[in-house]
């Protein structure tokens, strides 16, 4: 690109778009091929660089978009072309996709860097020589898949990324594939990964069906073609768009952990903390929100679908928030918080507040990544402290569980307390994330959440109520967490001896913290930078009118007050009178069985086991063992077909024959049949007169027939 051109017409780097996928792929290939001979740092650096380069590309694309806001489509190759079906590998550059690229590339790079330190420090799992290579290959693969997801120019390419990130999620959740979350040998982590993948596949099923419907209605799955024709189709084929959008919602529910498919996300915390931050908080899980935002021209055509989406989001937001209140694991709280926040976003895009939803997506990526990574820092700190306390010195272990009979859970908040002293940096980082999430003015979360609430109050009051209560709970459980973890007295010697994390981990966190604090500036009321930015994408389709969220002071004040009250209550319960070890949760006293429900995630997992999984396993076993094998294979094919055939041949036509087990087919022949065969005996008796009789009878029958005829 000649400089003069850039000056005159603005930069045009659209052609670089495919590199958002190529860089991470190159990175992972380098690590696959040479990773075995490279050190930990080198592997991490290669991966981080690859990720960083995608961010650079994303920045260049932003610059280009500022000059050419209409964006571009960069075709790469033809993919599937059968008859009417034409699907290309093509990259779409517009403000919406580039926003996602920025988030993925930016937050992704920071987490990559963090992970270099974290993976080294994840002391429980040390001495797995391949872990760095494996981890960063998967991580880069994730970036590549996520980039495909956000940059695809058609639904199928989006689906490629969609399933690709699911795969990475599977691999990374089960990263410590032979352990459980506490480091004991177990299949649990792998199980959690599988649960995530399969739950996601259920969502993907919806996505696929939506795709099929779309193809047969529009004869295309390319975004522009579909969106342009949407109006026409909505008029001619009633219900078609509704069906497409609702099936798509199933996909959204899977990927973005909405009711009824949210169950995988809490279990996904089995993965290393950077994974939770990157995949299960900042990026992958927001894919569903992106999908709805991307499909806005479809959703806006069918209010019924919009209402459903919004309701699903609202209910999920509240439901998950209640569960978060009852959790003890530091990451589980954040996991349910994520589900809840995703509910906010889904509700927003469902209502048609696409900007608000996307805005919250971005800010949430900042502060939730920050919270997860800080939580990881806390866990590692506690872990180090535990080590220190147990041995008084650092030595390398093969495995923690072997050393201690009593299993120590470094993620359990009931073991923590007073850690603001031992881990001050982490404390401040965590706190900035918390206030952002709780929606305290003027942190990022305040602006984005408030925009959603404001829109909801105008568009869908039911959802507004749900979300407002959810926001209250959000502030409450975050407050609870802060008090339990960082204030009061250490409830375990591990917390007492906790140590601060190294800069390679904390520095990226500081960047994220800064973003969490200042992120609201992206779309300040009245300025609306982000709104205008996204408008470029949405205005293309004259059919849809983008909502310009109005700042609503009442709503803002209400929610701020709610948040402060919630934090206050949490202080009353957890902060004022710090708990001691072994003491039951104060809420339990107050809420009783309701809290038990929260603690046990409202038994949703158990419900699914009882209603879906166990029946499937039982049916599968029954089909396999009884129907297919015993009935169909052994009984019908072997006994009925083969057996009766032999029985027939022996019983009626032959005398005794000692049939030794040449043929397995005869195995089915029961003893009783043999007896019968002997009793009835054969015709071939060896007596010549019987033979003559047979001839004679033949003659008589034939002649009889001929004469009577």
């Amino acid at each position: 690109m000649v400089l003069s051109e850039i000056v005159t017409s603005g930069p045009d780097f659209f052609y670089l778009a495919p590199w958002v996928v190529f860089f991470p792929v190159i990175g992972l290939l380098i690590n696959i091929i040479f990773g075995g001979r490279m050190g930990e740092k080198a592997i991490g650096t290669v991966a981080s660089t690859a990720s960083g380069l995608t961010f650079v590309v994303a920045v260049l694309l932003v610059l280009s978009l500022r000059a050419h806001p209409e964006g571009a489509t960069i075709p790469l190759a033809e993919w599937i072309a059968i008859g009417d079906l034409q699907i290309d590998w093509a990259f779409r550059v517009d403000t919406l996709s580039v926003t996602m690229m920025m988030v993925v590339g930016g937050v992704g790079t920071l987490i990559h860097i963090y992970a270099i330190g974290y993976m080294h420090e994840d002391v429980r799992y040390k001495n797995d020589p391949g872990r760095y290579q494996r981890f960063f290959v998967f991580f880069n693969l994730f970036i590549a898949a996520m980039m495909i997801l956000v940059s695809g120019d058609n639904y199928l390419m989006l689906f490629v990324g969609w399933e690709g990130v699911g795969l990475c999620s599977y691999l990374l959740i089960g990263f410590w594939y032979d352990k459980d979350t506490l480091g004991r040998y177990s299949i649990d982590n792998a199980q959690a990964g599988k649960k995530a993948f399969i739950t996601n596949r259920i969502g993907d099923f919806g996505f696929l069906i939506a795709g099929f419907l779309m193809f047969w209605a529009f004869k295309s799955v390319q975004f522009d073609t579909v969106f342009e024709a949407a109006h026409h189709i909505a008029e001619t084929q009633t219900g078609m768009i509704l069906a497409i959008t609702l099936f798509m919602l199933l996909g959204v529910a899977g990927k973005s952990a909405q009711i009824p498919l949210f169950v995988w996300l809490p279990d996904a915390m089995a993965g290393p903390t950077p994974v939770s931050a990157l995949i299960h908080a900042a990026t992958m899980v927001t894919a569903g929100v992106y999908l709805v935002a991307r499909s806005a021209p479809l959703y806006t055509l069918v209010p019924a679908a919009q209402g459903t989406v919004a309701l699903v989001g609202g209910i999920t937001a509240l439901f998950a928030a209640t569960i978060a209140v009852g959790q003890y694991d530091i990451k589980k709280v954040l996991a349910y918080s994520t589900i809840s926040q995703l509910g906010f976003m889904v509700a927003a895009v469902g209502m048609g507040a696409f900007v608000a939803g996307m805005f919250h997506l971005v800010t949430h990526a900042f502060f939730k990544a920050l919270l997860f990574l800080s939580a990881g820092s806390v866990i590692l700190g506690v872990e180090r402290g535990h080590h220190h306390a147990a041995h008084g010195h650092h030595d390398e272990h093969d495995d923690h569980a072997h050393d201690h009979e009593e299993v120590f859970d470094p993620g359990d908040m009931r073991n923590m307390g007073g850690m603001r002293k031992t881990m001050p940096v982490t404390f401040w980082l965590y706190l900035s994330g918390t206030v952002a999430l709780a929606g305290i003015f003027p942190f990022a979360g305040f602006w984005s959440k408030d925009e959603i609430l404001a829109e909801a109050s105008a568009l869908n009051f039911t959802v507004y109520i749900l979300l407002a209560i959810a926001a209250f709970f959000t502030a409450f459980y975050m407050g609870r967490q802060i008090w339990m973890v960082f204030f009061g007295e250490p409830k375990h010697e591990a917390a007492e001896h906790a140590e601060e994390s190294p800069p390679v981990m904390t520095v990226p966190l500081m960047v994220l913290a800064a973003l969490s604090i200042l992120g609201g500036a992206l779309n300040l009321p009245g300025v609306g930078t982000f709104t205008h930015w996204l408008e470029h994408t949405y205005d293309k389709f004259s059919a849809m009118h983008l909502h310009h969220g109005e700042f609503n002071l009442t709503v803002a004040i209400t929610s701020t007050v709610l948040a402060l009250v919630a934090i206050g209550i949490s202080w009353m319960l957890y902060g004022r009178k710090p708990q001691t070890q072994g003491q039951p949760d104060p809420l339990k006293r107050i809420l009783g069985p309701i809290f038990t429900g929260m603690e046990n995630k409202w038994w949703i997992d158990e419900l699914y086991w009882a209603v879906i999984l166990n029946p499937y396993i039982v049916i599968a076993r029954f089909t396999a063992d009884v129907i297919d094998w015993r009935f169909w294979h052994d009984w019908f094919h072997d006994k009925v077909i083969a057996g009766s055939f032999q029985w027939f041949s022996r019983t009626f036509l032959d005398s005794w024959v000692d049939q030794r087990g040449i043929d397995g087919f005869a195995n089915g022949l029961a003893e009783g049949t043999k007896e019968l065969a002997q009793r009835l005996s054969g015709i071939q008796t060896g007596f010549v007169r019987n033979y003559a009789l047979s001839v004679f009878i033949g003659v008589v029958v034939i002649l009889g027939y001929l004469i009577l005829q």
Partner: protein
Amino acid sequence: MLPISYYVGLSAILFSIGALGVLIRRNAIIIFMSIELMLNAANLAFVAFARAHEALSGQVFVFFVMTVAAAEVAVGLALIVTIFRNKQSIDVDQMSSLKG
């Protein structure tokens, strides 16, 4: 003159007697004699038909049958004798080691 059907009827009866003899008797020689009876029943029919049709070929056939029967007798008796040497019996029911 007797009608032709009488001769044919007689031959049919003789033939049936022969066939039944084969089925009923156990002595190989008697079975063989019964077969001869069947052949001779056929001969009777031949002669009768030859007369009815005034065709000579029927009577020629009779000669052939008689010749062949003689040949069969030679072979048959030889076989029976060999078996008798071996088993001291010509009861066909004792010759049932081959079966199944």
